[in-house]
């Protein structure tokens, strides 16, 4: 979701339909559909909407055609169906619908018509401060789509509106713990809810400061392993500086490279780091544990599902959404009970097998049996020569090479020679983020 930057400073909003003459549709049904659209947003937020008959209502709704005095003329039937103004004084919040469309009201359907409710619920999202989202199933996707009969506000929109205005009740907050209103957060002193006036969404939330060193986790396996070195991070505005930090996990997800550190993730594409990042991991993958301070490993399975390893458990996601039945213990994968965590997980393109790394050992996963293959674990150094032990992350990049990360350095592994290309590691910041 994307926040425009403006929001209403009160939650009891009023609205008014200011068009008296509607040629093709019944005035009463129009008001009914508009009210229904407002209630979609009210259901999931602290907002309330009351219809009034007044020019001074917060949100005025007009049906207009062609040039109508706001610099955004309508184009006749089809194409652009409506637009709305972001919150503010004057025209702020108002919604304009193209009078020349074939509007359908009261849940009527037709091959040639457009549901007023469907368009209105999108436009009122703008009236409340939401910009367009590129999430295809979101209401705020720019191109209108039909709604299912059992319609529920998609997560993308729901989180967006709740970030702006808070959720209706604790039950909904329970779904998204990171987005509780200030009054419900455990430590208000750590909360800085800000919305960038330049929009494009950077929301700082209640979170444990990662300036505090993370307690090292100690292995308790029969095979002695060294404790993990506390992550090293230079912190600017409570977010790690990618030029001067190690990473908890790195993975190719949907063709982009995601770097995970603490509660944040960066997304690296062909043109560099995407705008809007780092983002809270919980904003992209919902319902991860509230007290999660870091992920251990992440990888995208061949079927597109995304696996997160956190401590002794792993989570499975379909896109952003957690799948039922998870998290599950690592032991259900055939990993030993003594294992406190995994360090890295990759699908290796040369044989499409999944490899799990932890400490000095690695396992190979058999997708058919859902268990680790026999003859594993093996010593990392016996096969992944030069990659070292106790790695932070590993992944196979678009160039076909496998990369191993540890502290602030990485090694490129030559998959044909089966050894690292050079003994000396290279700097993660310099290579991956163009840091100098």
């Amino acid at each position, binding site marked *: 979701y994307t926040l425009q930057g403006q929001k209403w400073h009160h939650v009891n909003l009023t609205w008014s339909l200011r068009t008296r003459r509607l040629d093709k549709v019944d005035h009463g049904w129009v008001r009914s559909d508009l009210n229904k659209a407002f209630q979609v947003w009210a259901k999931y937020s602290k907002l309330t909407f009351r219809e009034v008959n007044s020019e001074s209502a917060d949100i005025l709704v007009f049906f207009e055609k062609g040039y109508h005095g706001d610099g955004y003329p309508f184009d006749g039937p089809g*194409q*652009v169906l*409506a*637009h709305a103004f972001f919150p503010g004084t004057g025209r702020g919040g108002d919604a304009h619908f193209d009078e020349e469309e074939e509007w359908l009201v009261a849940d009527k359907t037709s091959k040639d018509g457009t549901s007023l409710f469907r368009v209105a619920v999108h436009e009122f999202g703008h009236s409340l401060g939401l910009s367009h989202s590129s999430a295809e199933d979101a209401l705020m996707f*720019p191109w209108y789509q039909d709604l299912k009969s059992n319609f529920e506000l998609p997560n993308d929109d729901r989180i967006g509106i709740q970030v702006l205005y808070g959720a209706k009740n604790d039950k909904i907050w329970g779904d998204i713990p990171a987005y509780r209103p200030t009054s419900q957060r455990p430590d208000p002193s750590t909360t800085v809810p800000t919305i960038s006036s330049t929009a*494009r969404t950077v929301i700082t939330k209640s979170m444990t400061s990662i300036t505090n060193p993370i307690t090292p986790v100690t292995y308790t396996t029969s095979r002695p392993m060294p404790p993990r070195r506390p992550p090293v991070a230079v912190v600017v505005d409570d977010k790690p500086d990618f030029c001067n930090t190690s990473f908890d996990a790195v993975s190719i997800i949907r063709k982009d490279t995601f770097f995970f550190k603490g509660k944040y993730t960066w997304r690296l594409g062909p043109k560099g780091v995407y705008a809007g990042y780092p983002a809270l991991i919980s904003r992209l993958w919902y319902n991860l544990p509230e007290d999660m301070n870091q992920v251990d490993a992440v990888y995208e399975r061949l079927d597109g599902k995304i696996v997160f390893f956190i401590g002794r458990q792993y989570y499975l996601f379909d896109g952003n959404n957690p799948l039922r039945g998870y998290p599950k213990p690592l032991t259900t994968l055939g990993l030993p009970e003594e294992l406190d965590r995994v360090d890295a997980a990759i699908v290796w393109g040369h044989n499409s097998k999944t490899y799990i790394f932890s400490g000095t050992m690695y396992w190979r996963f058999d997708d058919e049996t859902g268990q680790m293959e026999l003859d594993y674990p093996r010593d990392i150094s016996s096969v992944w020569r030069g990659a070292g032990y106790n790695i932070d992350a590993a992944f196979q990049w678009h160039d076909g090479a496998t990369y191993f990360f540890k502290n602030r350095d990485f090694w490129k592994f030559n998959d044909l020679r089966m050894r690292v290309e050079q003994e000396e590691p290279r700097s993660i910041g310099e290579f991956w983020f163009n840091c100098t």
Partner: protein
Amino acid sequence: RPIQESNNTSRRARSTPIYEDVQGYLMKFGYLPESDLETGNNLRDGSQLHDALRTLQTFGNIPITGKLDEATKQLMKRPRCGVSDISPTAGQHRTKR
């Protein structure tokens, strides 16, 4: 004198013109800067259009080719909201009633 419309003309078919003005579409929804409307510079190099189309295709969740392919044409024909995708349309929220 107004042209008499044929009763056989499908309203919907008439209402979905192909966006031949690709630049206009890209500017309207924030993928190309509108400043060129002011400067009169209508000539863009291929890479600008290519990048703008890629961004549109990314936003629309269709294959990213950077070209005006069939999927992009179909996307541009779809009914949509008039608010800009990339940034709030300048002045839209500031305009006073």
